[in-house]
């Protein structure tokens, strides 16, 4: 019987000819990335009585360290800056060559930009959005820092082979409807547990037509469906992107014709509209027009969910020659300096600055409320990844989640608006 992509990846990584969903395997890891919490691993080891803390890793070439959540050290509080100094010292102590400090951007984008994410490979990061790498046919999944301590020493970790949920998307996306709306349709229709513990496989002509930026958005957000993996096949787009930057050789995976799927969901993209998830989760989703009376104070575009060129292009297209509503703060944060530069060269950043947008340096701040916190009673519409209660500051603030197009249109109007009204 054939295997799904998840089964193939885990079979390969555990040195088995074949594995089946439900089995437990010990899988070798191809690549890791650790951000600001790197120092917590050293601390955790010391606290557990492991003398000397973190001293070595299983393979220095397979470890990327960077600082993205609090970059550069923020707030009038020396603790964060101290943490950064400690991270730099730890990187030196262990001798890790792939260190990007505060200077590259958000981890997941940097990993993609710099060729560490390759088709068919297996990557773990202490971050829930690691599923993002599935867009490049890479088995990416989140673990915690504690488990990462194990991976750093032995280059492997135990996993249960997940069953797979297939999502077939067909139909042409109407103008103004984006990859983010495809995701919101799934979370709104099927709930945030539809992919619990599962691997998702996205297929269909709409998926084939999606840009890599669009696939990265869907794969990133899939963790909010409970997913362990969110995989796309490697096509010419993937291979063209990867070939000029790959750090090592790779072998894509594709599902066997006779692979077994637990369920299949179908989505008709032609019938989708711009969607919005209302506070405080991703389950209650309605067309943007439904929320027209909701006034907003802040509009965010960025993060690892929607901080890529295509997302910024949407904002620039909608905001060109116009101005952000006077009562709204609009933040656009490219996810990495590579994206920042591309957006700048395309003229998007100038358009956005002219429109009164706060164009941020690449970092995780606005998504987590570490920068741009919301005061009690405020309302934010965001194209970042989550809208949980209190995530962006006050628990008495309301966060709506939508696509970059919807967010940009709303930033102009001062209230939530279907972007098709302005394109």
């Amino acid at each position: 019987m054939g295997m799904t992509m998840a089964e193939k990846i885990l079979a390969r990584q555990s040195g088995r000819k074949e594995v089946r969903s439900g089995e437990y395997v010990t899988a070798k890891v191809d690549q890791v990335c650790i951000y600001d919490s790197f120092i917590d691993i050293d601390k955790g080891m010391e606290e557990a009585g492991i003398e000397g803390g973190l001293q070595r890793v299983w393979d220095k070439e397979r470890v990327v360290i960077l600082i993205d959540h609090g970059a550069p050290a923020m707030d009038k509080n020396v603790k964060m800056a101290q943490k950064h100094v400690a991270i730099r010292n730890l990187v030196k102590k262990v001798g890790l060559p792939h260190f990007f400090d505060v200077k590259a951007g958000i981890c997941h984008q940097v990993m993609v930009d710099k060729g560490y994410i390759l088709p068919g490979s297996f990557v773990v990061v202490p971050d829930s959005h690691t599923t993002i790498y599935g867009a490049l046919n890479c088995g990416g999944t989140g673990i915690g820092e504690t488990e990462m301590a194990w991976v750093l020493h032995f280059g492997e970790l135990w996993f249960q082979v997940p069953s797979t949920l297939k999502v077939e998307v067909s139909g042409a996306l109407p103008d103004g409807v984006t990859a983010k709306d495809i995701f919101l349709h799934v979370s709104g229709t099927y709930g945030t547990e539809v992919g619990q513990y599962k691997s998702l496989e996205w297929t269909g002509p709409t998926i084939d037509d999606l840009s890599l930026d669009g696939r990265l958005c869907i794969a990133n957000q899939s963790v909010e469906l409970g997913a362990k993996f969110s995989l796309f096949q490697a096509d010419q787009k993937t291979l063209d992107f990867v070939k000029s930057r790959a750090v090592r050789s790779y072998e894509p995976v594709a599902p066997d014709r006779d692979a077994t799927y637990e369920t299949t969901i179908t989505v008709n993209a032609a019938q989708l509209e711009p969607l919005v998830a209302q506070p405080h989760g991703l389950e209650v989703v309605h067309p943007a027009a439904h929320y027209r009376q909701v006034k907003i104070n802040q509009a965010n575009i960025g993060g690892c969910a929607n901080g890529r060129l295509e997302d910024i292009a949407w904002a620039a297209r909608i905001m060109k020659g116009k101005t952000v509503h006077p009562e709204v703060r609009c933040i656009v944060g490219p996810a990495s300096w590579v994206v920042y530069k591309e957006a700048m060269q395309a003229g998007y950043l100038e358009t956005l600055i002219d429109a009164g947008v706060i164009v941020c340096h690449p970092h995780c701040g606005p998504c987590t409320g570490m920068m741009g916190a919301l005061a009690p009673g405020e309302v934010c519409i965001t194209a970042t990844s989550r809208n949980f209660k209190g995530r962006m500051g006050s628990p008495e603030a309301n966060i709506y989640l939508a696509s970059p197009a919807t967010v940009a249109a709303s930033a102009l109007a001062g209230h939530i608006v279907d972007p098709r009204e302005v394109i």
Partner: protein
Amino acid sequence: MAERIIKGKVVKLGDYVNTDVISPGRWMREGLEVLRLHTMEAIRPDFYKDVQPGDILVGGRNFGCGSHREPATAIMEVLGIAAIVADSVARLYYRNAIAFGIPVFAVEGISRMVEEGEELEITLGAERVTFRNTTRGGELSALPIPETMAKVLEAGGVYKLLKQRLAEGI
């Protein structure tokens, strides 16, 4: 896994208790002792006052969904939570709890079987794990924690297992 009984008073929460709520970003940076005062604040202010060491946390659907942030698991140890049982548990939170040595179980129906303040008895047997409401009756059972994870739990978490393994010499 050796048979073991965990018994404690139930502290009950609802559905979709996510890690932003368990460990708010603003307080996470201030250390676990400060975080303790703000855990669950958005849904249940002063939650820490309702919790006694030895209590069992019962949740509804998708407990621990959202970000991987480890303080959301570490804080359970600080609060003295003996175990976490929910109708369903988010994948990453499940992994993290085991990695910390905190017993965690996904048992469909648990949220309907117990109420706040009642006593829950968890018996970890070789073949099954049973959950008994000793206050007013009711019983559910589930498969035991898989062996791979059980080993981590028995060692007291991944750091402890790592210490053992390093001491043995790689």
